[in-house]
């Protein structure tokens, strides 16, 4: 329906002026859609116009100087722009939030100055003129009229819409959202923040390169003004006012904010002032974007039907456990220093297969530091960490999770904004076998994999007793339910070893009982569990062995019964005997 309207527009009396505006809206859509993709991971690129300009100048200069057909220079420009995006990404994607924003602003400024001052290449402020119009291979097939360019833009914008919809609606989109929402948890679920933000960066820069190349041959004249901050502001406005993170957000935003300034021409001198005021009002009163509020008014899209609530609990694959003998996890003489203080001092630890080992000790004993070292969040100053007999010291967290060593966090164990089911689905990431192109094309294999993961996620929710809350955003769950959801998230990547950081913190007695039953059952499936816990009932009631830390040093190790009588342990707990009383 919409497609017919779009295709018919040039024939129903829409004149060249409006066609031009529609073409420009499409152009800005390509730019805004790319910006939106990176913003899905929480990274706002306020230098995006630099990539637009780089694409435009690359295609324009190639066509002017080498005489190659624009049909070829445009893809070359897109690839080159993507490459520049890759280089900038290598440099800046480790930065977060405001730092990334400001560095990208600066990058665009540098490029603008280069375009202005490198007279020999760009002809500076005079601009680059005489760029050939677009053609389809030979000059006989040159695009002349607005209508021609309009249809070319329809194809490009449609492709962009499909591409971004596929990316955002797939595991890539979930991973990007997870990185924005809780980067540590994403990494410990096997999602590489760097490679996903890099993917978004490259795709968004390629789109900007395409938009730039199109612009060069459509307008046939380029000037350094392309790199102006005003252009980036326009794109950012389209994304945020349209609805960031949503597929249709940038599309609606680019249409509205191409036409609004045109209508404001009537206001003559007051045009930009009014534009600013409208912008401010939109940001203040519609911070989630037009699409969000439109959807709310129209009653919202139907929620996805819940996957069949299978009672299947076989969430552990044979593959996860099919590893050789020996220790599941071992720390060898690991030391971590903060300044002069050793938080963990020559600590060795051994976790057998199918074993539940508890790490206890007073606050500041080094338990959390030990967890951080094992899972790759904290480098060790000395010593090794071995998992399944392989050295994993110094690997990034997502690599460690990929191998099947997964952790549950103490405080931030969920992705708050996402529904419970999506929380678990996101963490199934490392199980995906399909390639990026299969995902973009939505092949049969991809659809089946996605369905399988959805079932697995629902199964895990059932397992922890949250089967009925699949659609509930995680932040609406009670504290105890969030812990259980955290457990389901930790199980989703199919781990063989589970690290639980104070799983019972904040749980009441009934919930703790339930948690203990679940951990027992998890071990029953053959998983090994290492946990840090203050709840002595849980520690003494279900662990095979207990290790006691104090000031980063192991002071005792043994069965719960032995630990309760150990004189040093009692002294470490201030001799209060609380450890006995609790148990």
């Amino acid at each position, binding site marked *: 329906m919409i497609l017919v309207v779009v295709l018919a527009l040039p024939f129903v009396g829409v004149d060249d002026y409006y066609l031009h505006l529609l073409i420009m809206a499409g152009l800005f859509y390509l730019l805004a859609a790319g910006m939106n993709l990176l913003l899905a991971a*929480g990274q706002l690129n306020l230098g995006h116009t630099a990539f637009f300009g780089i694409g435009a100048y690359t295609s324009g200069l190639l066509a002017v100087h080498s005489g190659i057909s624009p049909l070829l220079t445009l893809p070359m420009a897109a690839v080159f722009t993507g490459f520049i995006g890759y280089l900038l990404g290598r440099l*800046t994607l480790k*930065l977060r939030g405001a730092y990334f924003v400001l560095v990208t602003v600066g990058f665009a*400024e540098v490029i603008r100055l280069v375009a202005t001052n490198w007279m020999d290449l760009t002809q500076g402020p005079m601009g680059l003129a005489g760029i050939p119009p677009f053609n389809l291979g030979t000059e006989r097939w040159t695009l002349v009229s607005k209508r021609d360019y309009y249809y070319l833009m329809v194809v490009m914008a449609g492709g962009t819409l499909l591409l971004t919809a596929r990316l955002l609606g797939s595991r890539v989109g979930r991973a990007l959202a997870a990185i924005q929402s809780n980067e540590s948890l994403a990494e410990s679920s096997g999602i590489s923040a760097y490679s996903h933000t890099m993917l978004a960066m490259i795709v968004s820069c390629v789109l900007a390169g395409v938009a730039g190349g199109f612009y060069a041959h459509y307008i046939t004249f380029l000037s350094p003004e392309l790199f102006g901050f005003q252009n980036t502001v326009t794109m950012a*406005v389209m994304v945020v006012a349209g609805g960031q993170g949503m597929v249709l957000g940038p599309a609606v935003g680019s249409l509205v904010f191409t036409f609004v300034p045109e209508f404001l021409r009537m206001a003559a001198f007051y045009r930009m002032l009014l534009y600013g005021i409208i912008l*401010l009002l939109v940001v*203040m009163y519609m911070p989630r974007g037009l699409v969000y509020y439109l959807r709310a008014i129209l009653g919202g899209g139907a929620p996805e039907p819940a996957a069949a609530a299978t009672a299947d609990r076989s969430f552990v694959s044979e593959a996860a456990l099919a590893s050789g003998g020996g220790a599941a996890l071992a720390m060898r003489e690991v030391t971590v220093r903060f300044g002069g203080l050793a938080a963990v001092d020559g600590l060795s630890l051994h976790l057998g297969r199918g074993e539940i080992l508890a790490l206890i000790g007073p606050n500041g004993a080094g338990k959390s530091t030990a967890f951080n070292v094992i899972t790759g*969040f904290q480098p060790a100053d000395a010593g090794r960490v071995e998992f399944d007999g392989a050295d994993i010291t110094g690997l990034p967290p997502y690599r460690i999770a990929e191998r099947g060593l997964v952790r549950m966090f103490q405080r931030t164990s969920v992705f708050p904004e996402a529904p419970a089911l999506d929380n678990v689905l996101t963490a199934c990431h490392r199980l995906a076998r399909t390639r990026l192109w299969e995902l973009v094309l939505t092949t049969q294999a991809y659809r089946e994999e996605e369905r399988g993961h959805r079932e697995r996620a629902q199964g895990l929710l059932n397992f922890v007793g949250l089967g009925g809350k699949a659609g509930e955003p995680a932040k609406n769950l009670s504290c105890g339910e969030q812990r259980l959801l955290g457990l389901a998230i930790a199980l989703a990547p199919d781990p063989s070893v589970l690290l639980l950081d104070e799983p019972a913190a904040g749980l009441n007695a009934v919930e703790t009982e339930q948690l203990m039953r679940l951990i027992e059952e998890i071990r029953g499936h053959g998983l090994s569990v290492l946990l840090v816990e203050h709840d002595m009932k849980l520690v003494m009631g279900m662990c095979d062995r207990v290790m006691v830390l104090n000031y980063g040093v192991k002071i005792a190790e043994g069965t719960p019964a032995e630990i309760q009588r150990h004189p040093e342990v009692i002294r470490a707990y201030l001799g209060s005997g609380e450890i006995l009383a609790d148990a």
Partner: protein
Amino acid sequence: MIAELVQHIVNGLIVGGGYALMGIGLTLIFGIMRVVNFAHGEFFMMGAFFLFTLFSLWGVNFFAASVLSVLGVGVVGAVVERLILRRLRETPIEIPMLATVALSVIIQNAAILIWDPSPKTIKHVFSPLPLTLGPVHVVSIRVFAGLVAVALIVGSHLLIQKTRIGRAMRATFQDTDMARLAGVDVDKVYMFTFGFGAALAGASGALLGAVFWVYPAMGDLAALKSFAVVIMGGLGNFLGAIVGGLLLGVSESLGAGYISSGYKDAIGFVLIILLLLWRPQGLFGKKVLPR
């Protein structure tokens, strides 16, 4: 040779003082409120235009006009916080950021309507003759600008370290919730911080406006440079903003003198890119461990 070098450095330090003032304002606002203020350049511009209006158009005494201009920008900043940013406090970082972008569009275009876009000079009260110290010649207005910048930097430092509101600002900077629990009026701190940061930008604009030109778009480049300053020094880092500002001023002056004046304005960002190659987490960046 040496005389020329010293001359460049002195010129750079004076401009750098202005950058440092802007940077301090920006870094305080970010450190305490988590807002990247894209209207910072417009506060800078307003400082210059208020001075131009009060002194050049209305004939108010130069020094009184300077003080009034800075205070005026501070009041505008406080009002902006109260009416706009306060409502956006619980939103993701890009929302208040875009609000300040919108604000900068509004202020700049209002300035065009009020004062027209043509550049103006402030015919200040200082002798046009340079002060000469050995081989170095500095026009007296520049000496004045440099001294005032130093005084304002020291004054800001004392305000933050020694006064009651300064203590409340430091508390809010460290932990907003704890500060609130300890009885700090966080709303007041935010309003004061934004007004104070804006006033510093206004002071910088008044000083540099008196030295150079005054026009509505003068804040664009100044804002970009203050961004460079705070990235170099670390967002939220007071000392870093001073060091970053002076460093940028001097390297621009040297770059313009010895390399190319066309690329002068890119130097700050090239420095940042080199810095990132050397320290990807930024000069003062720290990794935060998860729990």
